[in-house]
């Protein structure tokens, strides 16, 4: 029981070190949380509307612009939806290259998050730039890994932000044998960095915040999930990507117009921690051993273990990318023809921040009639607020405002929210006080 009776009105107008612009409101009265919400105030960009009337062939260029940090994820989910409508199997070469490119985005995004967004808090710095003065090797290692992820995206996409190599049916161009070999060498050289990173992250002391959390991720038979498969939960349920809207209900919360995604009437978690918890046994032996060596008791319900999950996924991405490139051969053609019929296509892939679900209705000319995109951050939003409540109570509401704010920000950053993604689709509320 908290005995402190002071009233705290904490308002953080600009959250630092998150992608996009968000704010946090917290009101404590008589030692109880009276109001707590994450406000997303980025202006809407109305993607779902301007996709209408565009051709399915334009999707990779258009949806990439939703997010500069995870454009590959948007391109992959969109392509996945169109190909599922046409029943296209692009074949093993294209599937392997998609994985490879997607690993690049995971490595880049996770390394950016760990080093530039999350870690500085744990060492008492306001940014990676100031942290680099005292921990130059750590920050530089992180930036090298981030650079490696970008190089992997460039191999197939020419540039790492809004890459241009992906098309429905495959790729515009296949890397040469020489390019593939050069990158394999780079990946092999980086493996030690990634393994060291896992050990370093595991050594960072984090609060103990274990909770029973509902998790969702894709499930790919025999593989760590990224491109395909059904959606599975830790509650023993799994369902097809096309049934997403039957299971995920957007729920309107009283005194707010924000709609939260709920599964079985519960907030749920998507992202690296959910993926790792659900799919640990599909990791290659070397990476699984590394995960066990962290000393974390997987599956973990502590969101503060997300940073470790990201580091492990970096290591996995590099390991599997090396495997893919060992077998690399230049194909006769880098894509297969796709002609989707009129109808509705569904696609989901695992973005760095979690499940990214798309639905497109196409007409007989291949033009989009309507589109719906549900990004990971809007799925996580209810979970973020629930976690903030739980974490703040455990932390102690009687702590000074500055410490409360820092703790809230750390909790939010655990989810690596991408507000640029969420804002274009979230039915958001802007409280005007």
């Amino acid at each position: 029981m908290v005995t402190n009776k002071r009233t705290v009105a904490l308002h953080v107008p600009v959250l630092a070190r998150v992608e996009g612009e968000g704010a946090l409101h917290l009101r404590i009265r008589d030692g109880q949380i009276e109001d707590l919400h994450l406000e997303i105030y980025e202006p809407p960009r109305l993607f779902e509307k301007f996709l209408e009337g565009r051709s399915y062939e334009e999707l990779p260029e258009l949806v990439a612009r939703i997010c500069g940090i995870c454009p590959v994820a948007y391109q992959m989910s969109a392509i996945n939806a169109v190909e599922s409508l046409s029943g296209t199997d692009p074949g093993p070469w294209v599937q392997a290259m998609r994985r490879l490119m997607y690993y690049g985005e995971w490595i880049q995004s996770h390394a950016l998050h760990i080093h530039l967004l999350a870690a500085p808090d744990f060492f008492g710095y306001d940014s990676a730039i100031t942290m680099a003065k005292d921990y130059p090797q750590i920050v530089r290692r992180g930036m090298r890994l981030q650079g490696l992820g970008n190089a992997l995206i460039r191999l197939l996409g020419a540039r790492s932000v809004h890459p241009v190599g992906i098309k429905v049916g495959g790729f515009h161009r296949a890397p040469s044998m020489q390019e593939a070999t050069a990158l394999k060498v780079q990946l092999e050289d980086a493996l030690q960095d990634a393994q060291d990173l896992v050990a370093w992250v595991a050594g960072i002391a984090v609060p103990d915040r274990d909770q029973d959390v509902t998790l969702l991720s894709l499930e790919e038979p025999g593989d760590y999930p990224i491109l395909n498969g059904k959606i599975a939960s830790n509650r023993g349920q799994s369902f097809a990507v096309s049934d997403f809207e039957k299971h995920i209900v957007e729920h309107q919360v009283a005194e707010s117009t924000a709609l939260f995604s709920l599964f079985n009437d519960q907030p749920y978690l998507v992202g690296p921690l959910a993926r790792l918890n659900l799919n640990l046994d599909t990791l290659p032996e070397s990476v699984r051993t590394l995960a066990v060596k962290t000393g974390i008791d997987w599956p973990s319900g502590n969101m503060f273990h997300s940073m470790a999950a990201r580091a492990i996924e970096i290591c996995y991405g590099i390991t599997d990318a090396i495997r893919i490139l060992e077998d690399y051969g230049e194909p006769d053609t880098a894509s297969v023809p796709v002609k989707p019929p009129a109808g509705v296509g569904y696609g989901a892939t695992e973005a760095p921040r979690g499940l990214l679900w798309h639905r497109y209705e196409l007409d007989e000319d291949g033009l989009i009639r309507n589109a719906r995109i549900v990004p990971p951050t809007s799925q996580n939003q209810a979970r973020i607020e629930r976690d903030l409540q739980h974490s703040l109570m455990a932390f102690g509401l009687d702590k000074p405002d500055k410490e409360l704010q820092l703790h809230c920000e750390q909790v939010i950053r655990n989810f690596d929210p991408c507000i640029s993604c969420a804002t274009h689709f979230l039915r958001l509320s802007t409280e005007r006080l």
Partner: protein
Amino acid sequence: MQTSTLGRKPRMAVHKFASCDGCQLTFLNMGETLLQLADMVELVHFAEAGPVAPDAEVDIAFIEGSVTTEHDLQRIKQIRSNSGFIVAFGACATAGGIQALRNFADAGEWLSAVYAKPEYIDSLATSTPMSDHIKIDLEIWGCPPNKDQVLGAIRAWLYGTLPEQAQDKVCMECKRQQAVCVLVAKGMPCMGPVTQTGCGALCPSFGRGCYSCYGPAEALNTASLAGWFEGLGLLPEEITRHFRHISNSAPEFRDAAANIISTDADHGH
């Protein structure tokens, strides 16, 4: 250089408006160079990287994103009065971005379709570039702009000059690379002839047509290119979509699309 004129390190801000964050990544993806940059300038405001001081006075400000809300209008005026030199970078800040497609539609109807309670959303009917509202000292186009352009601009500014702006078309870059012309040799619609260079002709080098993510070049002939596209068998609405893409509201492309639509209407389609 600025440091000696100012007697201190120049203060720099990076502001964000309606955008995908991709331009800010130009900084965050710099790696070691970002650390060097932080030695040359004092990063006063760059929320995604850490420092938050949106109202601070700075010597140079980079702006990502377009103006889409009433609040944006207030912010941008404040930033102008707080900043010595302003660089608008990226397609959103220089041309309104892809979200400027709302400029051709009924944005109110769009809001109602996407949001259950549109009255809660602070949104203007249009998405507009920074130069529509304030004086901009330098524009760097591109979706996203590349690192060399951004660093080149900072270096030049530090030495009190303006960077050289490449005004070539993508075609010239293809020639320099000796890349095969995808428009002529493969019959692919390519926006290269009307697009400013800077990307390194990435799309043609990957065997596909340019989609003009760097925006219109100088001295361009959009009507001639539209004629080429028609010759390839593209329908007027398909040609229109090529101009109404990343830089849809750049005047040259906005007018090109309008011309195609009005010509098509005159022909009784």
